[in-house]
């Protein structure tokens, strides 16, 4: 189909007439120069619309027009920003031929015009999701794509508060907060205590998980259920339970204090204890799954080759489960550092970072505690990401090296 000159010319004349009427009509519309620019961009849009009609079907044209209407209503009617409308209209008309760019354009308009106070933190994840869906579209059905898109957007909405929080404070404010000695010590305490808690869990949790994966004893199901108990108990209940057992005035707390001079409540050991309690299920459950994934046949093979059960554990089961164990330790670590309820009740001093955020909030309000919260968030996420990527980058590497030395 050749270019439709005739309808084009008619449309152009109509457009010119419309602008002329609007410009000459009484009332405060726009200045003549704005009308001229509007006329120019509208004429360009008309040209692009005719190109669309020439290449595609009427459906494409309808799509083009509805996009135009959305832009018009949004920017001219609701926001009354004519210059932005002119700019975006020219962009829109030019990009219409490419669905990928058009999608990014739509997201851009949505985030920077509609969600303007949240522009960056909404545009970045949405653009990433759109790009991911775009790349996946050839490999799967529309239904799966829709499921993926809806799910990812919902997930983003769920994590949006965190994203928004990170964008709130300038790097300078964060740096000032980081230089405060109470913030530093709280963050160090949090990182150290949760690392210690994770190691403490690993020492008994990994052997327990291995045993549960390998022997079917009486009461095994009960044990597996009991492991989950810390997950379902409210944190405040955990804190109270610890205070009742070990706090000042309790028989065991007094006895430990008098016999060994150990005070647990309100000390580092109290923090670690509370963290061990809440984080243990995550490590044990993940380790159990990891050990169940190691074929028992490999352990039998190892035994017939002369390895004792302990040697088999160290040389076969542990390395083959190592990735799962690492993930379990990361989860436990993350759970430990995020623990707040039990810690604030049972061991409110020394201050861990989550408790510090809380006390700052009570003392001075959300704005004051915000930089500390942001710092804690960034540090946790950073360590989490590094640990997650670490083991996946180096599977079995240390084991291979150990062998090569032997040959």
């Amino acid at each position, binding site marked *: 189909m050749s270019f439709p000159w005739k309808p084009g010319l008619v449309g152009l004349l109509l457009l010119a007439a419309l602008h002329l009427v609007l410009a000459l009509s009484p009332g405060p519309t726009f200045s003549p120069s704005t009308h001229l620019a509007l006329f120019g961009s509208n004429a360009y849009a008309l040209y692009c619309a005719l190109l669309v009609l020439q290449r595609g079907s009427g459906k494409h044209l309808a799509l083009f027009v509805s996009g135009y209407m959305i832009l018009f209503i949004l920017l001219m009617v609701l926001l009354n920003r004519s210059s932005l409308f002119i700019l975006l209209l020219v962009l829109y008309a030019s990009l219409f031929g490419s669905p990928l760019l058009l999608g990014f354009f739509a997201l851009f308009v949505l985030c920077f015009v509609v969600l303007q106070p949240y522009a960056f933190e909404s545009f970045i994840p949405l653009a990433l999701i759109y790009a991911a869906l775009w790349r996946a579209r050839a490999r799967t059905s529309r239904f799966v794509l829709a499921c993926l898109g809806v799910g990812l957007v919902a997930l983003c909405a769920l994590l949006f508060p965190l994203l928004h929080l990170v964008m709130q404070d300038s790097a300078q404010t964060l740096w000032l907060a980081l230089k405060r000695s109470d913030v530093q010590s709280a963050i160090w305490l949090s990182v150290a205590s949760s690392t210690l808690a994770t190691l403490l869990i690993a020492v008994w949790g990994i052997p327990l998980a291995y045993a549960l994966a390998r022997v079917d004893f009486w009461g095994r199901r009960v044990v597996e259920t009991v492991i989950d108990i810390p997950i379902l108990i409210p944190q405040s209940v955990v804190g109270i339970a610890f205070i009742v057992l070990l706090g000042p005035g309790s028989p065991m707390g007094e006895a430990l204090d008098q016999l060994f001079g150990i005070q647990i409540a309100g000390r580092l050991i109290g923090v670690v204890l509370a963290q061990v309690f809440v984080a243990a299920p995550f490590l044990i459950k993940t380790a159990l799954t990891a050990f169940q994934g190691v074929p028992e046949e490999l352990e039998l093979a*190892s*035994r*017939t*080759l*002369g390895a004792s059960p302990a040697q088999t554990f160290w*040389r076969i089961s542990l390395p083959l489960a190592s990735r799962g164990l690492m993930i379990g330790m990361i989860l436990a670590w993350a759970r430990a550092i995020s623990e707040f309820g039990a810690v604030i009740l049972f061991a409110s001093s020394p201050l861990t970072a989550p408790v510090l955020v809380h006390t700052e909030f009570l003392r001075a309000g959300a704005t004051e505690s915000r930089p500390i919260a942001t710092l804690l968030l960034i540090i946790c996420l950073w360590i989490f990401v590094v640990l997650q990527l670490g083991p996946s980058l180096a599977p079995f590497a240390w*084991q*291979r090296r150990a062998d090569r030395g032997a040959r």
Partner: protein
Amino acid sequence: MIRLENITRRFGAFLLEGLDLEVPRGQYWVLLGPSGAGKTLLLHLIAGLHHPDRGRLLLDDVEATTAAPEKRGVGLVFQRSALFPHHDVAGNITYGLAVRGASTAERRRRLDELVETLDLSALLQRPVASLSGGEAQRVALARALAVRPRVLLLDEPLGPLDFHARAELQEELRRVHDAFELTTLHVTHDREEARALADAAAIMVGGQIIQAGSMSALQQAPRCRFVARLLGDEERAPTDHPLCEEACLRAGGRCDAPPLAAKRGDAPA
């Protein structure tokens, strides 16, 4: 030498009962029977992965009934190789030596020896995931032989292989058996495999050994129709024997069905 005396062991609903067998030193025996006969369980019991409820097991005249697997001097080759995925081929072969604390030189020497015998030099630095079925079984064989077992147990080692690899490895097995002066017990449900390899066979069904003897003796005088059919020679079918009938009954009356349903994957456990 492998000697079973009245071995009995229950595995849930399945029962290995009253097994007597003697495999003399240096002989190559097959344990022949249909799928689900309990052959693999018996093999694992000899390897020490299960202990019998009753009865005695002797390996080279040494009581081994309840000995730990690592103390028995038994090599076991699994149907699906069971190579360690986090070691390469050389690491798999020397694994048994490594856990015994053998010196580097000793490991090196033994590795070279096995690589030469089994022609593995091309595979040596390969990750095990990249091996074909036949290659993996040869490596598994080398791994089992590295620790100089007196007894070699093979659990359908040719099971998952294609025709070509099967013929090749079959030859290898017999050669290795002779070269290393092993006592070998080889589990299979394939009578051709048994004929090609074995000095003698034990016929198993329903958790019981219903006849044992040299291949020719079994051919000449099968105890009952089931044995004859298993050996592919139904014309010789004699009258039925109560032992066979009982065993077949336990196996769910499978004696009447074609005994060698071409099904892979053995053992109820």
